[in-house]
């Protein structure tokens, strides 16, 4: 029988290398998977790990996917570090998309004085929408001690139904041939693109700036420190006199705001209108992104890129190799699974029970 034995001091190098080892194992299993499916494993891996990085256009597509993932995962990382389990980022994303979409629909002659400034107003509206949605979670948790896990998850479905009602009802485009969609937003509301005919827009820079801001917030400000103490050792936070209530509100508002911002960038960027297909699962994928990135702002950048490669790779595998698109999910799951396995082995060592006692090494 095998048993796990805690290591006294987990290797620091190994914990940093863990995501890379996990990736390597994922590639290995992926190779096997393609071989079993009767496809050339090299071609298959190429779809996932080479094609998404080849050329400017591919990189632009990659960043369009990675931007919302980074933004949402940053907020979630703060939540999870504070021991607040917000798993409803998807709902906050939709709420942000709704308020931002409403703002975009107001554009017209009467907002001409704002010029391109309307984009800023749209983004702010998105942030507020996301915050409003997560504030419901915070309020119920704070006031009635309702589980934030359940409430945030359930609010995802409420947000999606609200979106459905709006695009099928009051916000439906009168000239839209009865399709469930809002009017196409005016070009002036478009998030400025970086040019070259590519879809990548300034959201990329917003995401990178947010990475820096969150790094500073977490590791250089007293507020960030307080949040993390509350997450790691609630008793120590009480001893120090940090308020658990303000930590709850802060974490939820931050992550709600970030998800809302991602939603705004999405509707006013690549989508350009509200449809029932706004929720694409970014809010859920960002949970994996946050964990694979070690809840660390810089780590999140890399894991978001990786996750986007899986998205694009899945689509390519479908269109070029005739493989099911669900391969994306398989790869995401594999990565998370191998990462957890690597982490376990970094913190514990595997020992065979009843084996002759090994010669102890002095540390």
């Amino acid at each position, binding site marked *: 029988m095998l048993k796990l*034995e*805690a*290591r*006294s*001091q987990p290797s620091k190098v190994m914990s940093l290398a863990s995501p890379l080892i996990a990736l390597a194992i994922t590639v290995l299993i992926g190779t096997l998977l393609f071989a079993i499916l009767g496809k050339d494993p090299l071609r298959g891996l190429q779809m996932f790990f080479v094609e998404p990085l080849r050329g400017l256009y591919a990189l632009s597509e990659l960043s369009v996917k990675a931007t919302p993932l980074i933004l949402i995962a940053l907020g979630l990382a703060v939540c999870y570090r504070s021991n607040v389990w917000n798993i409803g980022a998807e709902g906050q994303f939709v709420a942000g998309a709704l308020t931002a979409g409403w703002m975009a629909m107001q554009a017209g002659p009467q907002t001409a004085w704002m010029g391109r400034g309307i984009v800023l107003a749209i983004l702010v509206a998105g942030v507020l929408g996301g915050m409003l949605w997560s504030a419901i979670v915070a309020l119920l948790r704070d006031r009635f001690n309702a589980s934030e896990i359940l409430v945030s998850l359930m609010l995802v479905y409420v947000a999606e139904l609200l979106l459905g009602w709006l695009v099928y009802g009051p916000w439906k485009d009168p000239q839209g041939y009865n399709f469930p969609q809002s009017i196409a937003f005016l070009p002036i509301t478009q998030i400025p693109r970086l040019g070259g005919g590519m879809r990548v827009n300034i959201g990329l820079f917003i995401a990178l700036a947010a990475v820096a801001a969150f790094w500073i917030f977490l*590791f*250089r*400000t*007293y*507020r960030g*420190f307080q949040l993390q*103490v509350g997450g*790691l*050792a609630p*008793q*120590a936070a*009480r*001893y*120090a*006199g*940090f*308020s658990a209530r303000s930590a709850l509100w802060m974490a939820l508002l931050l992550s709600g705001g970030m998800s809302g911002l991602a939603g705004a960038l999405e509707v006013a960027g690549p989508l350009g209108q509200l449809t029932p297909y706004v929720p694409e699962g970014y809010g859920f994928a960002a949970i994996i992104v946050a964990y694979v990135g070690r809840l660390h702002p810089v780590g999140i950048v890399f894991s978001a890129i990786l996750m986007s490669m899986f998205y694009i790779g899945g689509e390519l595998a479908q269109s070029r190799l005739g493989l099911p698109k669900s391969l994306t999910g398989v790869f995401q799951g594999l990565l998370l699974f191998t990462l957890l396995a690597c982490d376990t082995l970094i913190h514990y060592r595997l020992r065979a029970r009843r084996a002759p*006692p090994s010669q*102890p090494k*002095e*540390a």
Partner: protein
Amino acid sequence: MLRLELNGISKQYPAVRANDRVGLRVKPGEIHAVLGENGAGKSTLMKIIYGAVQPDEGEMRWNGDAVTVRSPAEARALGISMVYQHFSLFDTLTAAENVWLGLDRAMTLPEVTRRIVEVASSYGLDVDPQRPVHSLSVGERQRVEIVRALLSDPQLLILDEPTSVLTPQAVDKLFVTLRALAERGTSILYISHKLDEIRALCHHCTVLRGGRVTGEVDPTQESNASLSRLMIGAEPPQLQHREVKAGAPVLELHSLSLARQDQFGVDLHEIGLTVRAGEVVGIAGVSGNGQQELMAALSGEDPRAPAGSITLFGKDIASHSPRRRRHEGLHFVPEERLGRGAVPNFSLAQNTLLTRTETVSAGGWISTERVRRLAERLIDRFQVRAGGPGAAAKSLSGGNLQKFIVGREIDAKPRLLIVSQPTWGVDVGAAAQIRGELLALRDEGCAVLVVSEELDELFEISDRLLVIAKGRVSPSVPAAEATVERIGEWMSGLWTRETRHAEA
């Protein structure tokens, strides 16, 4: 023939060698002390004997035969019983039901009850099997545990630090029982670090230090100093105790009453006490008599204290948060080091930020350089053995982390320092250092309030003593006038018969 013989027992844990070729010989009917500091390997050795841990090498002989004990159930089948330091009783069940639950053999509840009465009366153990455990005192709970251990007629009884939760009177009672057991041929392994008790009770003593046996002696022939030398390799340093120059009142409690927060907590009843500048006030008492509740109210972690019940320099602080109280000069060292006094996964440098904010700018920015320098200063000043300011709090030994936490609060130049269990689980050297620091702080004019279960410690450092029992606090007595007997009686709540002393 020996009852139990251990030869060359070794156990390696990932970071430490807990036992290194340990030998132990216990005769029938012998009360055998195993003496050692925290971390000397006593607990590991007992767990090996009781089958809870397997040794890496070495041999165990039971009544002359070589045996391998693979589990506590096997140990009990051989005739080995153990009473742990922390009781494993369910509060809502009766004593008999608790004993019943822990039995290996099938017996009906009435049978168990009858056996309990039999065993209890034959050893003079006073236990009522029908009473629910939550209504029992700590001494009574321990007797339930002992009766449970005795029910299987063991040939060897292991007691792990049995007196750490008892009043001095209850200790005497326990010793009578143990001597009676030994006279009937039961061997007893008595684990302790209290020298007086071992000298009073035990026939033979094996001393452990750093996982090795450092001596086998007859404790009745030894002095505290010689035992201490074997245990820590040196005699404990003597403390400098200067004349008290108590000043103005710093902390005053005015009949503070507070209902318990959790089901098995203790209500506080009309607690009144005063701590003056330049004196150490000690609060004695058996654990679980309201110490935790009182500390939480004083530190501000429990913000429910009624207005006006707690004053600091005459100012009402009852509703102030822990941070605000710290700004006003009240610093607190909690009894739990990991998870409350320090965040286990954070570095020592980060852990200074829990209570020290001079390294944080007004805008809330942390200066990592100043945080690191502060941690370095604390490590240096209080001789904390650690891998530098970046070492995780959980990587430190209990004593070193305690030095760091106490040092963090002392270095903040408090005007009132409240310390809960200052040397709990701390080795003798570090304990002496911490006590010395507390006295030095007192000499600088700080008011110090110490809560401890160790009477010796309180007598050593306190200027005035008072006792907490069942959520009430006794009047205070100058330490010079207090005796162990009197404080011991008070620990059972029996001070009301005596004339009330006016508060000094």
